[in-house]
């Protein structure tokens, strides 16, 4: 229930910006060409929470991507969203400096020490509070605004739509929410499941369930997927096998075997877009910097159409949008995630 307060402002409905992932230059171009208002990307190192081999940007690639996006009037947001490790601050400071020097629109940061550095050294560079910063209340977000002048905060995927609206009512910081993509079921920035199994986590090296720990093993007619030796899932003959992200494995609890934490499924909020716009949300984010340019292009194209449809009265979800999105959804399943209160 949303409570009233004397400091409450009614959120103004707005057409949210569409923020799309770019794990590579072709993906960036696909996002821009299909109507993203902004792309977000990261460097090829552990300052980036999607530090996957073969992906992400060096200075030269970022310069080229920036030029491509800028020439078409779009923004480039640089995610430096892991936590700087003790004794290695210069690596993260260098990433912030590079993003500023190259002319990025904003940096997306999680660590308070790094936010303080960016605010002091590069006051003109916009600062966004990363989803990895785990700010779930307006108190947390307003604190980041007072302390570091953050302009936007990305909400973790843990709030209901009513709770999102309550946050918007109590802050002047722009609010960005996830709209489509693989669902991180845990509160981002606070999940150590990956390091419990492998020693490496999103917070430290920027990867969850890192590929170098994955082992596939044929066992008769079934296929086992192991993460650092721990059996994450077993697939029967002909059963499609997904990437063994450990929270989406099948486990046994009190004699029952199944997806005890989460199914392989994708978040898809297209049907909620009118409520999201009415809540005053500033931007909708698409997950998937590890996905192909084809995925980025397709999701961007559909969400562009859906968001543009908000500008006319009588928004209605087109079946074609949902079927296009279902093709690129994980496990071809979709969910409203935490926005939908009965989530269980």
């Amino acid at each position, binding site marked *: *229930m*949303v409570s009233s307060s004397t400091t409450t402002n009614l959120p103004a409905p707005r057409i949210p910006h569409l923020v799309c992932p770019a794990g590579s230059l072709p993906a960036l171009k696909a996002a821009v060409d299909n109507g993203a208002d902004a792309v977000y990307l990261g460097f090829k190192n552990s300052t980036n929470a999607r530090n996957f081999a073969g992906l992400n940007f060096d200075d030269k690639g970022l310069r080229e991507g920036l030029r491509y996006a800028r020439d078409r009037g779009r923004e480039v947001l640089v995610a430096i969203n892991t*936590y*700087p*490790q*003790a*004794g*290695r*601050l210069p690596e993260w400071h260098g990433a912030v400096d590079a993003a500023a020097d190259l002319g990025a629109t904003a940096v997306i940061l999680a*660590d*308070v*020490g*790094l936010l303080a550095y960016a605010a002091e050294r590069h006051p003109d560079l916009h600062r966004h509070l990363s989803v990895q*910063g*785990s*700010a*779930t*209340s307006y*108190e*947390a977000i307003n*604190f*980041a605004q007072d302390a570091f002048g953050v302009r936007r905060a990305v909400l973790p*995927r*843990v*709030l209901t739509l009513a*709770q999102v609206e*309550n946050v918007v009512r109590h802050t002047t910081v722009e609010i960005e929410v996830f709209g489509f993509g693989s669902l991180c*079921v*845990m*509160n981002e920035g*606070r*999940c*150590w*499941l990956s*390091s*419990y*199994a492998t*020693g490496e*986590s999103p*917070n*430290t090296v920027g990867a969850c369930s890192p590929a170098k720990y994955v082992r596939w093993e044929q066992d008769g007619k079934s296929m086992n997927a192991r993460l650092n030796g*721990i*059996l*994450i*899932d*077993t697939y029967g003959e002909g059963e499609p096998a997904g990437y063994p992200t450990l*929270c989406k494995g099948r*486990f*046994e*609890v*009190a004699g*029952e*075997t199944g997806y*005890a*934490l989460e199914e392989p499924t994708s978040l898809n909020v297209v049907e909620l877009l009118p409520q999201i716009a009415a809540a005053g949300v500033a931007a909708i984010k698409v997950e998937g910097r590890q996905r192909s340019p084809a995925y980025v292009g397709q999701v961007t194209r559909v969400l562009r159409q859906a968001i543009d449809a908000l500008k006319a009265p009588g928004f209605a979800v087109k079946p074609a949008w949902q079927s296009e999105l279902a093709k690129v959804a994980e496990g071809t399943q979709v969910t409203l995630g*935490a926005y939908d*209160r*009965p*989530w*269980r």
Partner: protein
Amino acid sequence: MPNPIKLAIGPILFYWSKDEVQNFYLQASDSPADIVYVGESVCSRRCQLRTADWIGLARDLADAGKEVVLSALALAESEGDLIALRKLVAACAESGGRIRLEANDLGAVKVAAEAGVPFVCGPHLNVYNEATLAWFAAKGATAWVPPLEAPRSLIEPLHASRPAGMATEVFAWGKIPLAFSARCFTARHYGLKKDDCQFRCLDHADGLTLATREGQSFLTMNGIQTMSAQHYSLLAELPVLRQLGIDALRLSPQSKDFFAVLAAFDAARRDPAATPSLPPGCTEHGLCDGYWHGQAGIAKVSAEDDTLATAACGA
């Protein structure tokens, strides 16, 4: 002899009945623990004790001579969660410095800092570097708990460079809280909606074990929290922790044998030559200490306690 390293009883992470909680803190009050955390840090639906009850417990423990810390929720979602947070901070302010706050998110840091209430940076505040530690110190933090995945190689230099007046408290015993979610896994296991969970966590005093399909105990489901199935133990590392000058060790409550575990840590901290043993049966799924050694958290590196771990695993 220098002051021994302090022992802290962390917040109860499970859902226990009001009687069980009160009995636990009666024992805690008479225990060798120096610091006691009270409060609900996991799930706001857990209401056997109301915020006022937790504050009452905190005052009783402070009167009994303990250093007391009120723990705030790690995952604040609703206006109600913020109202509870403000009550905790007000109680800390009224205590005249006897009671501090454990801040587990930036919102709690804001409310504490604005009220001038000293706070502990809980393990979920993600202090991985010296600049961040200094920043929280400037906001009024008087202690910090390193992220639970942090190895010795990260904790040691941060502890050495800590700002004046900042105490370092290392998580040294218990199931490791690894993640939080909007989804309640316990309710889901029972086919219940989160808002109608029927408080099934009350049936699982130490959580619900999640095993791989080949029977390896792996995780613990505790409502919206996911924990390790194994108990983290740094008992064997006490000589090193002492040598590093770590200020306090956090022992995380469990329903069985907790005060015997506390006694083992107490014996070890008082006598470097002692080789205290943990009570048999204090852990169902064995011990782990990989995080301290820079390995996978589930790994067991130190040779000590192996007998216990093996016995528990085989049980």
